[in-house]
């Protein structure tokens, strides 16, 4: 029969109560296949959010520049007036603060937008079947775009302050990758949690502010003391210091810390992705 022949070519889907259980390797295959298929959707969602975001805004993309500029200007001011004594960071402090805040904002903004991504897309989730990962990835896209704008600003300020460029700048993107994976991984988990407990969004915003002072962002890590211990155990320290070192110093000040943090970031990312993939079906019920 011709109908049954053509029918057998069609993709078949089976929905059962225990979707994906008991196929540990099949799930990874599904996940990668789906990621490949949904590139276009993630891109479209990114473009959608991006163009909508700057459409009804007088300053538009300028905001991406203004926020880190004002942020680092604050620390430069505090440093130069002596309110905050940061000491020698090896390069003009303006460059140091601007770059550091740019890196930190990947994590803090990334975490905030990712953890809100599923709830914000709730209306779509209950009405359309699509890979929910794309919502998180598209949200992270906004953060990446801001990153590019701000890195441009960093380069301009580096030139203006005659800060030398090291060849290791070429490795900068690679060193940035673990930070991105760490952020998205954590974002996956928090976005799920936020669906059930809306407190998460508030907690994340608060925690991000607090965490910044437990991470050597606007100042180098202290030599000793409680804060030094905390910072050495904080995976963000390595993930933020390494790209900054490569851009400003030309060498890694603490390669070991970067390596274990990076390994942790990769593991976290894949584990979180898998968890996300396994439980996303539940989201339409709870969102």
């Amino acid at each position, binding site marked *: 029969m011709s109908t049954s022949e053509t029918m057998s070519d069609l993709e*078949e889907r089976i929905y059962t109560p*225990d979707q994906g259980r008991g196929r540990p390797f099949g799930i990874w295959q599904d996940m990668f296949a789906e990621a490949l298929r949904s590139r276009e959707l993630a891109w479209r969602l990114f473009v959608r959010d991006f163009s909508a975001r700057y459409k009804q805004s007088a300053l538009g993309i300028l905001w991406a520049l203004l926020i880190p500029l004002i942020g680092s200007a604050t620390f430069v001011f505090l440093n130069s007036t002596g309110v905050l004594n940061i000491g020698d960071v090896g390069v003009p402090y303006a460059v140091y603060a601007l770059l550091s805040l740019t890196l930190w904002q990947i994590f803090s903004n990334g975490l905030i937008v990712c953890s809100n991504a599923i709830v914000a897309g709730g209306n779509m989730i209950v009405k*359309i079947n699509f890979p929910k990962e794309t919502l998180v990835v598209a949200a992270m896209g906004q953060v990446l775009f801001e990153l590019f704008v701000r890195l441009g600003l960093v380069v301009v300020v580096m030139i203006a302050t005659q800060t030398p460029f090291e060849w290791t700048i070429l490795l900068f993107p690679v060193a940035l990758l673990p930070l991105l994976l760490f952020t998205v991984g954590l974002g996956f988990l928090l976005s799920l949690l936020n669906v059930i407990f809306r407190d998460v969004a508030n907690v994340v915003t608060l925690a991000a502010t607090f965490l910044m002072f437990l991470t050597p962002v606007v100042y180098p890590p202290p030599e000793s003391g409680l804060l030094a211990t905390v910072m050495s155990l904080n995976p963000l320290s390595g993930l933020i210091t390494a790209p900054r070192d490569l851009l400003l110093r030309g060498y890694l000040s603490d390669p070991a810390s970067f390596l274990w943090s990076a390994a942790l970031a990769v593991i976290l990312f894949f584990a979180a992705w898998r968890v996300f993939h396994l439980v996303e079906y539940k989201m*339409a019920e709870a969102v």
Partner: protein
Amino acid sequence: MKAIQVNQVSKKFSQSLKYLMRYVPLDVGRSMLGLKRDAARLRRGEFWAVDDVSFELAPGERMGLIGRNGSGKSTLLKLLNGILLPDRGTIHIRGRVGALIEVGAGFHPLLTGRENIYINGAILGIKQAEIRRRFDEIVAFADIGDFLDSPVKFYSSGMYVRLGFAVAVHAEPDILLIDEVLAVGDFSFQKKCFDRLDAIAGRGTTIILVSHSMAAVQRLCPQALLLERGKTVFHGPTSEATAKYYESLLPSYEAKIDSRIVHRVPGSMVVLLTGLDLLDAEARPVQRVTSGDPLRFVLRLQVQDQALKQLPRVAIRILDAQTEELLANIQTPLQIIQEIRPDRDLTLVCDLPSLNLAPGIYQVEIKIGGDGEDLHEIALLKQPLEVNWSGYVVDNMSYKGRIFLPGEWRIGNGST
């Protein structure tokens, strides 16, 4: 080979957020540990939204999914679309699924129609190249004219629906799931949608249509499945299914008159509605009446606040039971209101010499208070009313029109 096979599928929901917040983390935890979700049983605070439903559709078949609000139609549709996973049973779907659970879900209000076509297409899983190829066709179908490059938040609701529908039907799915979206839009657009659905069904697309409009279901689907509280009540020819659906509408109205039906002004309870009787010509209480027969409404009220100087307006409203469209609003004349001395117990009688309603199921509402009294609590009593053809009940549903005019026919003799 079937396009859709639904095998003893059930889906449960939590009744309240409290249980949801408890059970979701529990279920998620279990499935992460690789344990069974223990889905087949109901826990406290849960109910079956879809309960043991089975059916099969061959490619090109069209089925209507009907039932009252909350009967599980939309949930079943979401299960078929994979938005929700079943808690029991299995669903096999062969082919690309297009779903119109809500038209324009995923539209961004600030973006233009043009931008939203591409985004919505991507969300529905259509390749960008395919959208580009069919772009003109989509725009022509949506008929939004100059608004193509305006943000969709400036669209009328009709334009919004047209655009969403246009994108979805041009995806050329093998299986199309539609939820009540055709209820919106004007007549000409509805006709266009139906023609389009006919055309894609003719090409072998399997269609499931969820609707409260029996006319829409009859128009498009030879078979229908009637759900009640998540269970299949009937699955078969549409005409039979719709007849059963109309029957099911009746007993659901358990109009109880209780002390909660009050008209209040802020702070004090003023008027209590204590009774409503519908009486026929022989003064017998009725719930079924015949088109053109006389009908008497007897309302009993109790005035609680003796300081009340004038009775609030009382109205008898007649609504279409399905669409809740207001068909008649019979108000107490001002003269009566002014004459009444608000006493403790009051009876109001309203006589209709002839009930000029076409056969069908209606809802009678008694409303005390309302217009211009925003802060007041309005007393509202709802009761069903079935109107039949004189004498026989048979072909009630094929009656066209909403009102009954007792025309008297005869053969003229040339001059009159």
